[in-house]
């Protein structure tokens, strides 16, 4: 059945460059919580042991026949979840063994901290202060940071042995998202409405740091794509004037700075962006990949952005957890027929592979993505 004429990297780049690949590139966002379910591990094992988290991802990849891109190559575990800037509850510690890790919505950054961020920068504030506010009493921070370096090296070596394209070794959260997570959503929204000047000053400073950090990391790792994340800025949450002034303006700065260095930015965009999709048309053609989570209407986004930007997604976590394999198969076919018919789509899960995924549904996603076009 296979009529593949491109290698994994060529296939992914064809989609990014808005050309028609030999077939749709497949890239489920398989983080440890989903990989645990797919490989029979507990959530506790993958959340507390970075090596086991990576092993779960590698095993899931091998077990389901592999796929074209593994864009988040370093597993998200007890270590790097700290970099969300929030307190984390872990399975086997505060949660039951088979419950996935979860973050706590709490005001860990106080109003008075804005001045420290504006004066000293986010990175300085985070490493020397915030990290110690959110860490669990059992966390040894220097040890955890060393462990991250080890696991990055191991992930680099292990993925290089497999036939998959692993482009993202650099990434960051949008500064707006960092403030929303760490101030807590309601407090940050109060800041935006009642004391916007200080937010703007902080974002001005933070966005320059994000640009520098990401470009430096990309240069150091030889990446071509940088991962960026935002889950709280779209039209689901904020009116367009707020979005324009405190998110879009900074996003354009980030995208332009990366694009001028030849770097594509892959935006992980959770929640509905239906009201904002048209803004992305203003970005340079082919400069970003937009990863939607199944709540943004990807079919409408295709009409708006088709031929201009590559889309990614968007099999909904509920469908993957509760649906039947034929439901998943039908949805993937619809994505191929209506979004990928002329290229410009990377097939993925909406957000990450969910912790309650049915293995047969995962198989249906990967297999339909790889075979449907050749079966027609």
């Amino acid at each position, binding site marked *: 059945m296979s009529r593949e004429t491109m290698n994994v990297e060529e296939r992914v780049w064809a989609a990014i460059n808005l050309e028609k690949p030999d077939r749709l590139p497949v890239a489920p966002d398989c983080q440890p919580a989903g990989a645990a379910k797919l490989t029979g591990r507990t959530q506790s094992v993958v959340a507390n042991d970075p090596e086991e988290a990576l092993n779960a991802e590698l095993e899931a990849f091998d077990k389901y026949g592999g796929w074209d891109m593994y864009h988040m190559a370093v597993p998200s575990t007890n270590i790097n979840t700290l970099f969300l800037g929030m307190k984390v509850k872990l399975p086997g510690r505060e949660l039951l063994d088979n419950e996935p890790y979860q973050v706590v919505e709490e005001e860990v950054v106080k109003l008075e901290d804005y001045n420290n961020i504006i004066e000293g920068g986010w990175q300085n504030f985070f490493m020397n202060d915030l990290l110690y506010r959110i860490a669990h009493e059992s966390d040894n921070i220097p040890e955890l940071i060393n462990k991250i370096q080890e696991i990055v090296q191991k992930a680099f070596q292990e993925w290089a042995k497999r036939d998959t394209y692993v482009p993202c070794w650099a990434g960051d959260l949008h500064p707006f998202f960092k403030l929303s997570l760490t101030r807590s959503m309601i407090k940050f929204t109060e800041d935006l*409405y009642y004391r916007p000047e200080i937010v703007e000053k902080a974002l001005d400073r933070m966005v320059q740091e994000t640009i520098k950090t990401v470009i430096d990391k990309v240069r150091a790792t030889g990446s071509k794509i940088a991962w960026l994340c935002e889950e709280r800025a779209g039209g689901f949450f904020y009116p367009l004037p707020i979005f324009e002034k405190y998110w879009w303006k900074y996003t354009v700065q980030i995208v332009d700075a990366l694009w001028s260095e030849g770097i594509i930015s892959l935006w992980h965009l959770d929640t509905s962006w239906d009201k904002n999709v048209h803004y992305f048309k203003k970005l340079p053609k082919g400069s970003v990949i937009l990863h939607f989570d199944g709540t943004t209407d990807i079919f409408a986004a295709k009409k708006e952005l088709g031929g201009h930007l590559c889309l990614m997604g968007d099999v909904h976590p509920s469908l993957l957890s509760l649906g039947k394999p034929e439901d998943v198969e039908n949805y993937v076919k619809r994505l191929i027929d209506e979004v990928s018919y002329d290229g410009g789509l990377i097939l993925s899960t909406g957000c990450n592979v969910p912790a309650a995924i049915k293995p047969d549904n995962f198989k249906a996603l990967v297999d339909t993505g790889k075979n449907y076009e050749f079966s027609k």
Partner: protein
Amino acid sequence: MAEQLTNLLVDLKNEKFLSQLKDRATKEDPVKILDECKRGMEIVGERFEKGEYFLAELMLSGQLFKEASAILEPYLLESGAQEYRGTIVLATLKGDIHDLGKDIFATLARAHGFEVHDLGVDVPASTVVDKVKEVQPNILGYSCLITTSFEPMKEATEEIEREGLREKLKLTVGGGATDEFTKKYLNADFQTTDAAEGINYCLKVVGGELNE
């Protein structure tokens, strides 16, 4: 004066709103003042429906309403019991500790005159069943942000069915991890990711619009 308090809430003039509210609470009928705040929340809801307001304004007005309710509470207690439009039991089930969406919904529901029994997060199915038995709500609402709480929601629903309580209430489910598949799986009456849409559904339930 009444219109002013309502408008201050709608326009999110937080400082003026709270200052006027505190001043009036000592002198006027607290039920009347609370009604003015509820009217403000209704207007916010109407603007949300028209697409003029967003979740941000729902959250901020909800916060103001919450503060107003806390200020008025001692005066309301003195003046006697409030009347409710209906009763809602709300929970985020076992395994899920996210409370943001649930809390927003609870505040909006209270602002729309519902008695809300918010059971919190990480709630065992048995606690939901016990509370439903106790208060016999018009609406049972599940909030859900992660897929691993699908099974505890299913367990609670099946127990409610076995107890013969399901026919007496409407079951709603909301949150980022939910969609039509979740609704079908739980045999729920309604699903949404939009808190204001959820409130409208609850208003229809108690308004008798869904009694077919």
